[in-house]
């Protein structure tokens, strides 16, 4: 009996190991998602339909894009609290260029992405050059970006009148799939390639694990960190673009408190708050867990206050599991 249990435990560990090394995905998160999907399908007849699944994916897309940036930053043992505000600012910047300056529609894309990357690179510059903690710099940027979004928008209101090409990015359905879902998938594939397989990704995880080790082996930690915060800003800009296109307006109040939701998705997906461990695939699973929870509880007509309770509990549980594993590895 004991040897049987031991062999199951051994197989479980082997499976975990393969998921981790081959797919860079934490097996536990995938199983939690699986159980949730089954539970919701049993509890609600409306849950497991194509249109509802697409709804979940669409609702997850903006947070999912933001969570990509959060994963990169957390993996390097950093923190970016500004992404929600940068999302709002980027949307306004993109809308401003096409709706008020009346430039051609591609400038909405360019404006949103450039505004996000610019804000991120300012974060990176201040963190690497002045050594002010990332918490403070990005908390400052949270206020600054939100403020500039409101300043740029006429009377602090939303900017309307976007060209149809841009609206398509938010509301279009090529092949029946919502465009934001396709944008999220493309961004996630690129970021997963970067973090899991490239040299840049390896160095990101290594510096999150031990900055001293990264420095000693000749990794340019400052340059790496600057690029990471710029990428985080860029993903916030992309999320801002998608949000703007979905609501058909550049709204300076968009993305309020999204930074915390993005970080939550990353952590539920197995990315470590203490650096050295992170996976884009995992984060996508994390974002889906939150999406399925919200959608399922909606279908079951559970008041939305309880959804917040449920997500809070899932977050704490995910970090608890993470700590059990991390403390084992970081000892000695």
């Amino acid at each position, binding site marked *: 009996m004991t040897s049987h249990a031991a062999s199951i435990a051994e197989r479980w560990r082997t499976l975990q190991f393969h998921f981790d090394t081959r797919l860079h995905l934490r097996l536990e998160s995938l199983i939690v998602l699986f159980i949730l999907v089954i539970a919701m399908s049993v509890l609600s007849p409306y849950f497991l339909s194509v249109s509802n699944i697409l709804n979940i994916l669409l609702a997850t897309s903006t947070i999912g894009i933001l969570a990509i940036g959060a994963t990169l930053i957390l993996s390097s043992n950093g923190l970016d609290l500004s992404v929600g505000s940068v999302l709002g600012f980027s949307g306004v910047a993109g809308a401003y260029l096409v709706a008020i300056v009346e430039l051609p529609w591609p400038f909405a894309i360019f404006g949103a992405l450039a505004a996000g990357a610019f804000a991120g690179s300012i974060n990176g510059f201040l963190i690497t050059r002045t050594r002010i903690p990332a918490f403070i710099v990005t908390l400052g940027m949270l206020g600054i970006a939100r403020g500039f979004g409101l300043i740029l928008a006429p009377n602090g209101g939303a900017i309307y009148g976007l060209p149809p090409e841009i609206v398509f990015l938010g509301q279009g359905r090529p092949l029946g799939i919502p465009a934001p879902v396709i944008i999220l998938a493309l961004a996630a594939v690129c970021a997963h390639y970067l973090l899991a397989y490239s040299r840049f990704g390896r160095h990101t995880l290594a510096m999150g694990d031990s900055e001293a080790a990264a420095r*000693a082996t000749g990794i340019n930690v400052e340059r790496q960190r600057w690029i990471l915060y710029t990428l985080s800003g860029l993903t916030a800009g992309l999320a801002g673009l998608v949000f703007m296109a979905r609501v058909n307006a550049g709204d300076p109040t968009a993305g309020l408190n999204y930074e915390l939701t993005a970080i939550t998705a990353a952590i539920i997906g197995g990315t470590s708050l203490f650096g050295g461990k992170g996976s884009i695939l995992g984060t996508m699973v994390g974002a889906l867990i939150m999406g399925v929870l919200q959608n399922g509880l909606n279908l079951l007509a559970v008041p939305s206050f309880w959804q917040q309770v449920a997500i809070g509990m899932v977050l704490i549980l995910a970090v608890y599991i993470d700590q059990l594993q991390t403390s084992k590895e970081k000892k000695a």
Partner: protein
Amino acid sequence: MSLLVVKGVTKRFGAVQVLNGVDLTVESGTVTGLVGDNGAGKSTLMKTITGLYAVDEGRVIFADRDVIGQGPGARRSLGIEMIYQDLALAKQQDVAANIFLGREPLRRPFGFFPPIVDTAKMDIEAQKMIDRLGARIPSINRPVGLFSGGQQQTVAIARALTFNPKLVIMDEPTAALAVREVESVLKLIRQLKAEGIAVILISHRLNDVMEVTDRIVVLRQGRIEADLVTRKTQMKEVVEYIVGAH
């Protein structure tokens, strides 16, 4: 010319003068012991050689090249490796990742994708290096934080030796080891010397230093106090220099 020439190196941390005009030369195929009291400046001096610290004054010439303006990465590729006292390992990453940290081999999937890290090659090479060191490690795909002190030491040594270094600096490599493991480190140092590699050994264990070095340099309060030929000196004399009683 000598492999490594350090000339008049000065280093201050704020108001504290840690190195005060240090001169040091090291030849290929020799083992130099660097000893001194705590705070004498041994580790700081070594970090100015690896490029982790910038010098305030002075020159560092390695293999006939002035390396002052170069960072740790560039100096590693010239052949300067250091095994740090705290080992400087990324503990959640596996053995292969640590050995190749900063120098991961790349390959292009399907010929045209952006280059990715060649983990298969890393695993094979890492295993070869561990075998060459005659060490036993449970698995090279495990995070190094799960290993014992001696096994982690082996990984740090393997990282320093994988890219054909010309100079290997070891900062207290035996401090955390059991007796048998100490023997194997000393054996390794002799082997490196036989291969023509220069070794600088920092250690408080004077027995080890007397046993394995050709030369002993004593650092005291940021200056070179003595430069002794190991077989012409005795431990008593070395200790006197360390405490400033000579």
